[in-house]
């Protein structure tokens, strides 16, 4: 039931998308141990998160980064968690809820650096299935100060300064690549966009006409209904036109 909602989704044209495609020949089992390691770290570092997830009982979340050629299944069982990776959507088992968005947004959400509602309002994030379960997950994750760096670094405390710098350097590179790519994207798609805009305008005009016709139909229906009501017993006998005179001053002071 969960997946049809996302079949029409288009991934953002981002560095992640290209990196994902570049890495996709690697078998998924290459990444599985990394995922397992990271979840283990999360459980160890942020036990309170899982306490807040206990009321969910048994629940499965499909997490679908829209710009990666893989997806995750997060399985919770009364506060215990398991994470599995899948390279193809079709392999993903049935889940209670699905969360989907660019991986960069999902990571920001994990770290509590962005408001989940705001991402949803701006349509960057999509959810389907059990909305309450998604909300519980979001609230639980947000209750701790999760840091990806903290999770990633593990016990290698002495490497921290170097890795920290490397991570921030990477973030800078990522930002730049992102900007470059959007430039390329715009250049590539501009002719199509123009064509598309013309078609859209056409469709808008047609929709407007349809709306007008629908409105007419509704009006006629309402008139019919009213005419029918007027025939009922204890009739709405003395309906008069609204009172023209107004005993209360209209621009009353507040």
């Amino acid at each position, binding site marked *: 039931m969960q997946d049809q909602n996302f079949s029409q989704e288009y991934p953002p044209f981002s560095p992640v998308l290209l990196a994902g495609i570049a890495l996709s020949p690697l078998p998924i089992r290459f990444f599985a141990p990394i995922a397992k390691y990271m979840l283990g770290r999360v459980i160890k570092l942020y036990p309170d998160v899982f306490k807040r997830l206990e009321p969910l009982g048994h629940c499965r979340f499909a997490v679908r980064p829209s710009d990666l050629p893989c997806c995750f299944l997060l399985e919770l069982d009364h506060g215990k968690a398991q994470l599995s990776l899948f390279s193809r959507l079709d392999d993903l088992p049935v889940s209670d809820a699905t969360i989907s968005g660019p991986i960069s947004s999902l990571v920001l959400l994990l770290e509590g650096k962005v408001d989940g509602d705001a991402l949803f309002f701006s349509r960057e994030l999509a959810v389907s299935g059990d909305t309450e*379960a998604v909300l*519980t997950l979001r609230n639980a994750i947000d209750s701790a100060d999760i840091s990806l760096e903290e999770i990633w670094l593990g016990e290698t405390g002495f490497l921290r300064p170097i890795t920290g710098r490397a991570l921030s350097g990477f973030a800078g590179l990522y930002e730049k690549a992102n900007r470059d790519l959007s430039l390329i994207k715009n250049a590539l798609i501009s002719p199509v966009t123009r064509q598309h805009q013309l078609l859209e305008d056409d469709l808008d005009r047609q929709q407007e006409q349809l709306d007008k016709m629908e409105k007419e139909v509704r009006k006629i229906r309402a008139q019919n209904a009213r005419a029918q009501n007027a025939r009922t017993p204890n009739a709405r006998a003395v309906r008069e036109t609204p009172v023209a005179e107004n005993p209360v001053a209209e621009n009353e002071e*507040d």
Partner: protein
Amino acid sequence: MELVCPAGTPSALRAALDAGADVVYVGFRDETNARNFPGLNFSPDELREAVALARGMGRQIYVAINTYPQAGNLSPWHKAVDSAAEIGVDAVILADIGLLDYAQKRHPDLRRHLSVQASASNPEAINFYRSAFDVQRVVLPRVLTVREIAALIGEIDVETEVFAFGGMCVMAEGRCSLSSYATGKSPNMNGVCSPASHVNYEQRRGKLISKLGDFTINTFPDNEPAGYPTLCKGRFVGQSGDPSYLFEEPTSLNVMAMLPELIAAGVKALKIEGRQRGKAYVSQVVSSYRRALDAALRGEVVPLMDMGNIAEGARSTPGAYQKNWR
């Protein structure tokens, strides 16, 4: 003027304090508070830590126990008031007459505020709560204009707290059964409005359709900012036959531009809504309001900050504070 900020989790609480909140208000993790959402809120132990943390920084913690106790099952609410008193919070925010009565008799020294859910919108009602239960502050319902608030303050001897930013009830708070009409769960009884357990999103032909229980609340074309399906902020068809936001658009309350007027009116505290929102929201809104309020209190021009990205439907309104809203 006090800046009263929301926290749904210990992490959001730290974010609020870091961003300059004078007071953080929280709720227990059960049906005793009006943000009874899954995964949210504080255990008594978490509250104890929160109070210690806030106290160390010279700030305060209020606890909202603002739903209406269930007939024949008063003990969860009584226990909540007892724990808040025992932990030593700075005030409890209550709505129910029976619970105010209980709190006053059992814990006369525990400071009592009247929740917005009590919908006290005039001096007679507010003075009643003052004389009957010795409430020290009233959180005003979002139905009054700034001029009405100023006039009201002259007729009561209770502090006033007003909503400044966040989700906006367009109905008189605490007097609305729309949510339970559609879902069986209400703010007054269950601490939820349009609960997520009854929300469904469907993606259909380039449109996001949001449903609450059996009712379609809205549809959003893919390029339009979306809103949560709170039922008074949906698109419906009324008399004209055209779909429209019959009650209110998906929008956030934002009174930043009116801070000088609210200060002049004698309002004691500004409240930010959003215990259900993430800590990123709390950080952004609280720090923006801290800067704006500090400027307004110094008599400087209030720097207007863009909150579009965090607001519902990416829009905001001064709501009922301006008369033309009605």
